[in-house]
């Protein structure tokens, strides 16, 4: 009934101060929820984009090669036919790269550091070229053999610049120490924790370092049109690859570098294929995000409890003031249900108005922050995996936040409104005004 909405609306206006206070609080919590969700979205998107470019494909066909039972190397031997096979078997494939995997010490004239080593063929790496911003040098020069790309922080620690030579040293899979000299051709901008422990070299530098044949690689990384299909595709590839007679490992939600100990303890030799997804390889980062979203959940829940108490309190007050009016309305024939509605609608209107204002404000703020390209402190860059704050306040996020807060707030009105609807008309009218 229109008049009920009218009464509710006018009562809100009548008590402007009270409405503004409560509405303001609701708007602030909405704003906070939208902003934090947008931050989480931004981090998730960055993680997916950067993580799946720098350290994992959407689906990885990799594995371990064991010369002896106690010795595991992250290798895929004779990878060409396997690559052809999985390429054919993957629907909606965007592109494929092969990467060498290793771990070693990078030594410059003045310093050294330990790093993951990734061997790449730059001409196939379309995503990599988009993600990695060079601070100096040229990414394309990684096409030359014996070249490397470092990130700023590593370059700083090693005191090297583009054009300098560094030595990469590691133990080969046969247990002998070996070194390769490579030239730094590019220095990339830092990308948080993903770039801190990773150094990219020409694929052949990895092969040289570990004395591998040209038909070996570390991983075949598949990029899909839709990253969400990764698990499904991985499952399919496991059966396809197993059908060729290759041994395929059971899926575990872990990055490959966490699997060495387990693999070494197993009693087999030769090649086993391990097909993983970005969800496995980036499990640690997803854990960070899950923790963060749990924290947001707790924070927003606490704030919502406070808001609901505020709503109940305000409504008790309004009902006490209007008790005689309620009694009279009941006496002239207004049903209990209508009285209940009248108060719920009052809170619902306030909640709707406040959440709309709050989420509109948050959206504008998010756009502003993105446009301002605010550089976050180094410590946060690690977690954000980017240098600047990037917030994604998309329609589903805003709509979800708005709905949650509007609904919860309105639910806070139910008990007081119900009590109001149960007032005895006579008693209500006898109440002192």
């Amino acid at each position, binding site marked *: *009934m*229109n*008049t009920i909405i*009218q*009464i509710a609306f*006018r*009562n809100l*206006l*009548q008590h402007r101060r009270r409405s503004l206070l409560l509405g303001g609080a609701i708007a602030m919590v909405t704003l906070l929820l939208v902003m934090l969700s947008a931050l989480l979205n931004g981090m998730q998107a960055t993680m997916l984009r950067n993580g799946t470019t720098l350290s994992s494909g959407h689906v990885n066909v990799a594995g371990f090669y064991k010369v002896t039972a106690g010795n595991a190397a992250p290798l895929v031997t004779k990878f060409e036919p396997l690559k052809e096979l999985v390429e054919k078997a993957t629907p909606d494939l965007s592109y494929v790269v092969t990467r060498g995997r290793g771990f070693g010490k990078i030594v410059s004239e003045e310093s050294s550091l330990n790093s993951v080593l990734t061997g790449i063929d730059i001409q196939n790496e379309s995503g990599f070229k988009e993600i990695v911003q060079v601070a100096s040098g040229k990414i394309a020069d990684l096409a030359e053999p014996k070249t490397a790309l470092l990130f700023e922080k590593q370059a700083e620690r090693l005191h090297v610049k583009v054009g300098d030579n560094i030595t990469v040293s590691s133990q080969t899979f046969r247990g002998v120490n070996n070194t390769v000299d490579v030239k730094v051709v590019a220095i990339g901008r830092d990308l948080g924790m993903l770039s801190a422990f990773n150094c990219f070299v020409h694929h052949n530098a990895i092969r040289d370092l570990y004395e591998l044949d040209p038909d070996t690689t570390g991983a075949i990384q598949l990029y899909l049109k839709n990253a969400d299909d990764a698990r499904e595709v991985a499952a399919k590839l496991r059966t396809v690859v197993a059908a060729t007679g290759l041994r395929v490992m059971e899926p575990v939600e872990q990055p490959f570098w966490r699997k060495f100990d387990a693999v070494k303890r197993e009693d087999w030799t030769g090649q086993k294929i391990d097909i993983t997804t970005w969800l496995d390889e980036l499990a640690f980062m997803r854990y960070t995000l899950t923790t963060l979203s749990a924290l947001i959940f707790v924070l927003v829940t606490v704030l919502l409890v406070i808001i609901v108490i505020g709503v109940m309190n305000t409504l008790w007050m309004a009902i006490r003031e*209007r008790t*005689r*009016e309620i*009694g*009279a*309305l*009941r*006496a*002239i*024939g*207004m*049903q*209990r249900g*209508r009285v209940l509605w009248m108060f719920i609608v009052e809170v619902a209107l306030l909640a709707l108005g406040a959440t709309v204002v709050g989420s509109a404000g948050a959206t504008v703020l998010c756009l502003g922050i993105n446009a301002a390209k605010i550089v976050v402190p180094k410590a946060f860059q690690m977690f954000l995996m980017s240098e600047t704050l990037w917030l994604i306040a998309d329609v589903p996020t805003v709509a979800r936040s708005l709905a949650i807060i509007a609904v919860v707030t309105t639910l806070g009105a139910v008990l007081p409104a119900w009590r109001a609807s149960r007032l*005895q*008309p*006579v008693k209500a*009218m006898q109440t002192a*005004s």
Partner: protein
Amino acid sequence: MTTAYAATETPIVKLVNVDKDYELGTVIVPALRDVSLSIAAGEFTVIAGPSGSGKTTLLNLIGCVDIATRGSVIIDGSDTKVLKDKQLTELRLRSLGFIFQSFNLVGVLDAFDNVEFPLLLQGKLSKADRRERVMVLLRQLGIEQYSHHRPGELSGGQRQRVAIARALVTEPRIVLADEPTANLDSKTGNSILDSMQELNARGTTFLFSTHDPRVVSRAGRVIRLVDGEIADHNATAEDVAQLAAAAHAA
């Protein structure tokens, strides 16, 4: 004035051996004792009695906003004791118009909206018909020009007239009024009583409580309440005036 109430069929209001007790903590206050009474459709009846004699209590029982402690109250054929809250509310909306001692208008609605409200609850008339109905009443009661004023912007007498219009707008079979002239000057009081008598002539049953001798003098029938009991089912205005004078003197 006299109304032909004697020659009617079933009474529209019938109370049989009604008691009403209020509980004040552990004390029980008997407000009405063994009240039996019937009112025929079309009557113009006044309940007279000193303060605290139980006039409001009786009107509340007849107005279906309260339930008798003992005995039965039958309104328009329905025993209010057996009705659920929903049906009682429906009965109030359909058959009764209630004018309260303190007007209890909706503060945020203007005079027009307050008067229109019961019609909206009934949901029977079109917007145009509602408007027509409301405006006719406001005109009759001489507050047409205040239709867009909220209760807070009206005098006591004007508010009372809005409350009266709200009670009459649904054209109820019974109109109950608790001291309707208490807040009005004699000129306004008389003009309101005139309109009510006009409506009564067309068939609406009126039941007032009052101290006001002017109202008593217009009644078709006077029921006198003393200490929660009916002292006289059909007193004359003179009786009431004498008793009031005696009480005053004492």
